[in-house]
């Protein structure tokens, strides 16, 4: 995006047509930076917690001296791994890597493995296709059939809707599979609303029908698919009627889906992230990709599996999701031993040494990680907590010292993406607000106090004057320079508009793997994408009558996780959390539209106004995630700290609740 600065203030945010994925206009969050950057609520100087729990302004010297003292003492008494480093997905850029590099120089630390967002889908894709890449965003316009499976692009990927419209204008068909009737499903000819967490059953039923009717691409399968016979046999184990029963959708809908997928080419399946936040979701996602494979919808324009495009992860190191796994051979310096999904309980479970000190940056684990109670307890048990933040989040409120975080307009960096494949420069265009220092400067100041110096430090954490040289050095292996990026967005070297045209799949067999020995070996799951139910589900044989409702916590167009929701510009459209319920579920509980209700389970409770919406599936409730405690919507008070079946994701949606009138 292009921004206008007048008298040191951001006054406008506009699109850049050179980025062909987003030429028309920024999303709501992008526009709202004019407020976010200059918000009176922004933290602009270091804050120290006082004895009464409030925060008072302190100087940088005082804050850094105290932090350095604590770091030194903790290292001396317990070893460096008593320091816990936690970072999430806030401000992006190459410089984010400096944090762990600093901790290595410090002597080590403990950090997390896994990720809150998307690992199960990434790993399912990696196991099946070998690599996480998909066709360029604009290629969707070439699709003749689009299936949005668990994805509400109109809210979470609005720029994709432009290409959907182009495809529809050209006569494409659109099917949406989602427990909710969404803005995206409004464009579709068919909305299938399965029980949450049963998508794998649905996919396998479709596969069975495709195979039975012979509407599969035998030539493609013969050449490029590994384990098809085993897959076909497995898909045949359950009848379509049985699957329809598990998913609670009509057989006719499954048949229509199979008919379309078998007859309309090219077809693209766009999968959402929410669907892979169940304990069975690695297998679910593998089953979905199998549908692309058996119909030959891979490696062709308008065809494919659109989940995540990591073609901009070109800066060395492991690509996601491998980067999320704990190392097979720990280096003894950085202990990667805390699961992001089980953050609270794993933090408490660390021994030798136990955790004593936490450093949090670019994240808000007290709102966003599962099982908020446990996370809060773990943070409170530590000796000392430092949080680098722009705003007074739930996590910042737990800190002993809050250090002000830079905004994305205040330090030059290079950013990639996970939908389009452009590398882009994010130049510093504003002076640091107030007393803000970028993380690189914070780490260098700490290094000085901890007697860490020399070229090692300059390599790990560049000084402000060396910043552009450092970035250029990262770009050099790619034959790129900052000057190139200053011209505009640059497609990442090696990126392709249509992927897998060469039919080279970097899997152990070199083919698309429907049968994955690696899956079995690495994750202990069935080598075939066999469907099973999630751990906490109302679909099981023996549902708990105390908590009959499946709770989903989807993302909204109005926030990115827990960011932006504190801005007036955003809150005018989304003033507060509410729980969405089906009319029948509400009526059964004597609840009316606008009533306040308690949403609760064995882990926690929220009190929210009720929105009665006939578009949501019976038996499901939904509260968008990302609300803060002060806004009354900490949805993870209700979720459990559980990992997905593969890749250490967080199974947020394995959550059953009950609702009663407050």
């Amino acid at each position, binding site marked *: 995006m292009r921004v206008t600065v007048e008298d040191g203030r951001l*006054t*406008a*945010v*506009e*699109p850049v047509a050179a980025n062909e994925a*987003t030429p*028309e*206009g*920024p*999303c*709501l969050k992008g*526009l*709202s930076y*004019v*407020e976010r950057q200059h918000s009176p609520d922004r933290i602009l100087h270091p804050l120290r917690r006082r004895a009464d729990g409030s925060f008072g302004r302190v100087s940088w010297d005082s804050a850094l001296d105290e932090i350095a003292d604590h770091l030194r003492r903790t290292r001396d008494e317990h070893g460096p791994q008593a320091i816990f480093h936690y970072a999430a997905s806030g401000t992006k850029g190459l410089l984010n890597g400096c944090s762990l590099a600093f901790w290595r120089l410090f002597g080590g630390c403990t950090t997390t493995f896994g990720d809150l967002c998307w690992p199960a889908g990434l790993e399912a894709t990696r196991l099946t296709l070998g690599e996480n890449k998909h066709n360029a965003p604009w290629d969707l316009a070439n699709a003749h059939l689009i299936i949005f499976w668990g994805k509400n692009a*109109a*809210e979470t990927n*609005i*720029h994709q*809707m*432009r290409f959907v*419209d182009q495809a*529809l204008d050209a006569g494409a068909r659109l099917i*949406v599979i989602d427990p909710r*009737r969404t*803005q*995206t*499903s*409004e*464009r*579709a*000819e*068919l*909305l*299938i*609303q399965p029980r949450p967490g049963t998508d794998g059953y649905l996919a396998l039923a479709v596969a069975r029908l495709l195979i039975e009717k012979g509407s599969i691409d035998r030539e493609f399968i013969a050449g490029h698919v590994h384990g098809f016979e085993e897959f076909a046999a497995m898909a045949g184990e359950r009848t379509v009627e049985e699957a329809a029963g598990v998913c609670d*959708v*009509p057989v006719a*809908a499954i048949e229509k889906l199979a008919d379309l997928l078998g007859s309309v080419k090219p077809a693209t399946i766009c999968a959402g992230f929410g669907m892979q936040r169940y304990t069975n979701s690695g297998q679910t996602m593998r089953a979905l990709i199998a549908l692309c494979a058996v119909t030959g919808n891979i490696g062709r324009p308008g065809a494919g599996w659109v989940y995540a495009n990591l073609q901009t992860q070109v800066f060395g190191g492991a690509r996601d999701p491998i980067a999320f796994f704990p190392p097979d051979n720990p280096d003894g310096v950085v202990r990667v031993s805390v699961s992001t999904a089980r953050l609270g309980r794993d933090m408490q479970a660390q021994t030798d040494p136990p955790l004593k000190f936490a450093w949090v940056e670019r994240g808000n684990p007290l709102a966003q990680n599962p099982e908020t109670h446990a996370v809060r307890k773990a943070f409170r048990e530590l000796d000392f907590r430092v949080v680098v933040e722009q705003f007074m989040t739930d996590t910042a409120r737990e800190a002993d010292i809050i250090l002000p975080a830079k905004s994305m307009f205040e330090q030059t960096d290079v950013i990639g993406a996970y939908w389009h494949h452009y590398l882009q420069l994010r130049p510093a265009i504003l002076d640091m607000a107030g007393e803000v220092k970028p993380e690189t400067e914070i780490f260098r100041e700490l290094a000085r106090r901890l007697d860490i110096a020399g070229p090692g430090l300059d390599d790990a954490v560049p000084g402000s004057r060396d910043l552009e040289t450092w970035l250029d050095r990262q770009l050099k292996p790619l034959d790129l320079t900052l000057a190139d990026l200053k011209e505009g967005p640059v497609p990442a070297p090696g990126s392709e508009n249509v992927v897998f045209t060469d039919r080279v799949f970097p899997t152990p067999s070199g083919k698309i793997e429907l049968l994955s020995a690696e899956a079995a070996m690495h994750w202990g799951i069935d080598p075939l994408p066999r469907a099973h139910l999630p751990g906490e589900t109302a679909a099981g044989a023996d549902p708990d009558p105390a908590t009959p409702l499946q709770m989903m916590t989807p993302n909204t*167009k109005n926030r990115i996780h827990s960011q932006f929701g504190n*801005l*007036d*510009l955003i*809150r*005018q*459209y989304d003033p507060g959390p509410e729980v969405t319920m*089906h*009319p*029948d579920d509400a009526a059964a509980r004597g609840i*009316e*539209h*606008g009533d306040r209700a308690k949403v609760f389970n064995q882990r926690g409770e929220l009190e929210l106004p009720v*929105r*009665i*919406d*006939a*578009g949501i*599936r*019976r038996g499901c409730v939904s509260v968008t995630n990302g609300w803060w405690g002060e806004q009354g919507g900490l949805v993870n008070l209700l979720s459990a700290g559980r990992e997905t079946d593969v890749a250490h994701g967080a199974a947020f949606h394995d959550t059953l609740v009950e609702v009663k009138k407050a």
Partner: protein
Amino acid sequence: MSARPAFIVDVNKCTGCHACAMACGIANDLPATQPWREVRTFNELHVPGVELMHLSLACNHCADAPCMEQCPALAYHRDEQTGAVLINSDACLGCRYCAWACPYGAPRFDESRGVMTKCNFCVDKQHEGGQPACVTSCPTGALTWGELPDEELVQDVPGFAQAGVGPSIRFEPLLPARRVPETTHPPAMPPWRRLRDKIVPHITLKHEWTLAVFTLLAAALVGVFTAWRLGSVGLDWRVFLGLGAAGMALSASHLGHVERSWRAALHLDESWLSREIVLIGGFLALAAGALYFGGWPTWAGWVAVALGFLTLAAIDRVYRVATIRGSGPLNSAHVLGTGLLLAAVWHWSLPVAGGVALVKLVLYATRRRSRTRLGCDVSHPAMGWLRAGTLLAGMGAMFGDIRWPALILILVGEMIDRGEFYAELEIPTPNSLLLDELEARPEAHAVPKGE
């Protein structure tokens, strides 16, 4: 006029993301929560079988702009180059009448400045060759910009009033294939009627009681002066002028800028509000003069009577921008009728008063009945009986020649009717039209089948 620029809204592409509205507020430096552009959603609670749709609207810079035509203070003008209808905050009284006149809900009252504010078509950007911020910020290309076709009619879209005022907007309505997805589960009815609760009406008795009192007072003064002219009552010029001044002050009290009241007389050639103000000023002045200088020629008094009734007609005309469901063009609460009735009562002419009262009663009863049938709000039945009863009792008192009780009873009845009039006045807004549209859809009334 050709080559006027226009907003082009492709309803098929709009996802209701609000980027246009937010960009509007940012580009025009408006308070964060008060952008000129607004996105309304049709069927947000998902009535099965009815499409979900969004309508992004700001000002449509109409060729026959009702705001500009009806503004009494000449605060509106047109930018010749772009056709933009612009408001001059230094000339605006803050009377809010343009908001009543606009079918698209474009002008809004800015509480902090006491004036109306609305979309300015981003004229500055246009003069520099650019396009409005809402257009350049739409991420899906649903809101674009083009040349207004000369003759083409505006397409029908839920929530958009076909007011025939030449709006600079065109729509691509929803294509049949994109209307509603086939779904896999039995339908259920959401409580969509509750959405009415969120609609803020332009006119309520609570906010407009000063106008209710003022208009009734005007009718009373016209009535009593007419009776004086007919020689049937005595009237002290000080009482008359005092009440007139009080009424004028009351009506001015709702203005955002009382000190600019004089501007209300500037737009006589088009604005009924201007005409009303000038007429009542003329009536009060001439009538007071006639009362004070008892020796004025008789015709001067008759001119004042004529001005008085013209004032009452103008008042009734001003309210024609609003509608009352279930009411014909004549309403029992119209002040012209009240003025006539009160003149007859003060003149003690039972045949005239009885005739007017009979017409009023018929109008009142039929309106009440048809509103009840339409499911519109009506006052408590006791209030209805009180209104009818006071009028009948007043007539009875006249028959029995009991002067003061007759007057008081009749005045009370007129007050009730006028109060109900303000409560029943409605100005259709995009939000209310969207709900009317939903109301009109058979799917919104189907009894859902259980699972």
